[in-house]
């Protein structure tokens, strides 16, 4: 089966004040049709930058330096800005954002906002767009959709607005929806409810999803495939089942173990603390925080390699990682 999206060795940098931030530094990621793919990694690892590169909506200081983004066989990097606007953004690929309260324009009704997207990408008039929007609202379980249509964002709850943005994301029947931590800003009950509904919806309409999150629990719940990102690059990827049951990268192991992003200092088992900060120029980017790394890890650049059909890692010592995960009987089950 052909991949819907294939990102190959993507490098996206930010430049400013003479410094270069390599936000995405050699990322590979692919998504197949109708697949729900998780992208997990701590804050600042470059998840949002991947999404922004994909839609080419980077802030002015950001730039895709190299790599390929192949969507339905087309290299996104070669499309003109006009083609991006009319064919890709909102039409083929749409997005749901982290903070629903600020992601819609406060000066327009939610109805106006969704119909303007519909009218932009489809050859329909206001009346038809409104009918469609109200249908979509009904689909995402917005109660009393006709009435909500004329509400301004400030008149709706966070959960309700997130439903509106989900409706908007689905409005033009995209092939891919990027969800950038869409439930983080909501309270747990609402988040759960929306997650359930979203899961049902994507099954119904058969869309691929790139789900960006910190939350491994969510990944386990809704994703088929997971990508673990660290410092702008992918450390481990595979089906949720393989990666969760048999993590072969010490970073993944750390994530699973704690489900919190920070760990104890180096030396003290099982993993390391520190922040995403000092990245070695050569060799493994995770080295400063890796409990099992040694000089060998800094010698050469480490490639993402396939362990088996559904599992790849960027580490030269998977056996040690495996031992690490077994040595302490932490069990990941309790976490997720």
């Amino acid at each position: 089966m052909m991949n819907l999206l294939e990102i190959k060795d993507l490098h996206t940098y930010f430049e400013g004040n003479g410094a270069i931030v390599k936000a995405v530094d050699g990322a590979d990621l692919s998504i197949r049709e109708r697949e729900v793919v998780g992208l997990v990694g701590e804050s600042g690892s470059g998840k949002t930058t991947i999404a922004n590169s994909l839609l080419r909506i980077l802030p002015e200081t950001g730039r895709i330096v190299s790599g390929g983004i192949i969507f339905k066989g087309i290299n996104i990097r070669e499309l003109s800005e006009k083609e991006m606007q009319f064919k890709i953004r909102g039409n083929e690929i749409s997005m749901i954002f982290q903070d629903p309260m600020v992601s819609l324009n406060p000066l327009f009704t939610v109805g106006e906002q969704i119909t303007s997207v519909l009218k932009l990408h489809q050859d329909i008039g206001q009346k038809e767009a409104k009918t469609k929007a109200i249908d979509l609202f009904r689909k995402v379980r917005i109660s009393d959709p006709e009435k909500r249509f004329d509400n301004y964002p400030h008149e709706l709850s966070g959960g309700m607005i997130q439903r509106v943005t989900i409706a908007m994301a689905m409005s033009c029947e995209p092939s891919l929806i990027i969800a950038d931590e869409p439930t983080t800003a909501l309270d747990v009950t609402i988040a759960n409810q929306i997650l359930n509904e979203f899961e049902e919806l994507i099954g119904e309409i058969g869309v691929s999803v790139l789900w960006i999150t910190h939350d491994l629990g969510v990944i386990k719940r809704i994703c088929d495939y997971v990508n673990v990102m660290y410092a702008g690059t992918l450390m481990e990827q595979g089906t949720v089942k393989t990666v969760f049951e048999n993590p072969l990268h010490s970073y993944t192991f750390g994530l699973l173990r704690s489900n919190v992003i920070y760990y104890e200092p180096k030396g003290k088992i099982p993993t390391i603390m520190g922040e995403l900060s000092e990245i070695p120029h050569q060799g493994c980017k995770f080295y400063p925080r890796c409990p099992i790394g040694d000089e060998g890890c800094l010698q050469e650049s480490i490639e993402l390699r396939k362990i088996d059909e559904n599992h790849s890692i960027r580490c030269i010592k998977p056996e040690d990682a495996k031992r690490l995960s077994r040595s302490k009987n932490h069990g990941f089950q309790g976490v997720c």
Partner: protein
Amino acid sequence: MSLERYALRRFLEMIPVLFIVLFIVFLMLHFIPGDPAKNILGIMATPERLEQLRKSLGLNEPLHKQFYVFLTQLARGSLGTSIRYKAPITELIFSRLRVTLSLVFMSAVFCVIISLPLSLWATKHRGKFPDYVARISSLFVFSMPEFWTGLLFLNIFALRLGWFPTRGWGSGLLDNIYHLFLPSFILGLFLTALVTRTLRSDMIEVLQKEYIRTARTYGFSDRTIYLKYVLKNALLPTITVLGLNLGWLLGSSVVIETVFSLPGIGAMLLDAVIVRDYPLIQGISLVFALAIMLNNYIVDIIYGLIDPRIYRS
């Protein structure tokens, strides 16, 4: 609440303010130290003439009665008689109001057609050449008092180059516009600089907002994003600034009308002050005060039109 109800409520809220304004304007004559009649006629006036004036202005009556008379006269559309022009003040004001309103209107037009594109251009190329042009020219304008700019432009474009008339208001619509071109341009300059600066910084702020990113994500073009979203979201602070500066505009119209010898209400006010035509000063002050009240009302309504959060909560 609907917009209509909001508009009505704001209107009703103005009524007490209106009475306060009327009372203050009425009191103006009495605030001036000394005998109002003497102030008006000067120290050389004969006792007979003073008495006559006191009588015609009703100065001998108790204050509340005078206010009552003032109000009833006003209700009949009368503001008394000008001492200098010996004519009804309402008539004088109406004949001159047209000039001032045209002047203010034209300067607003200048302000909009210059500041909108300029601030959009500066925002789009912030930190680059267009932005510097906008910022430095604003700064330049801020540092020049309008009487000075007025005289400078008058000297260059009217006297030396002869492109524009030096004085007066002309006759006929086109001629009026031609005569008002230079003065309204100068009157509009300060506002233009102010609006350009405010809009620019507010638009830059709005551009960072998540909802603008949403619009971009959904495929809206830069054109739509700037003209439909960024501009609208950045407009409120600008309207506030404009609203607050109407008083300044009226004050400046006095200067500009004088520099360009325009027969407007501002120039008439200056005249009235010089010859101590107190009833006329009173009348013009009332018009200015009403203009500012009306302006604030309109600003409130525009607020509501732009941002429904203001009345829908």
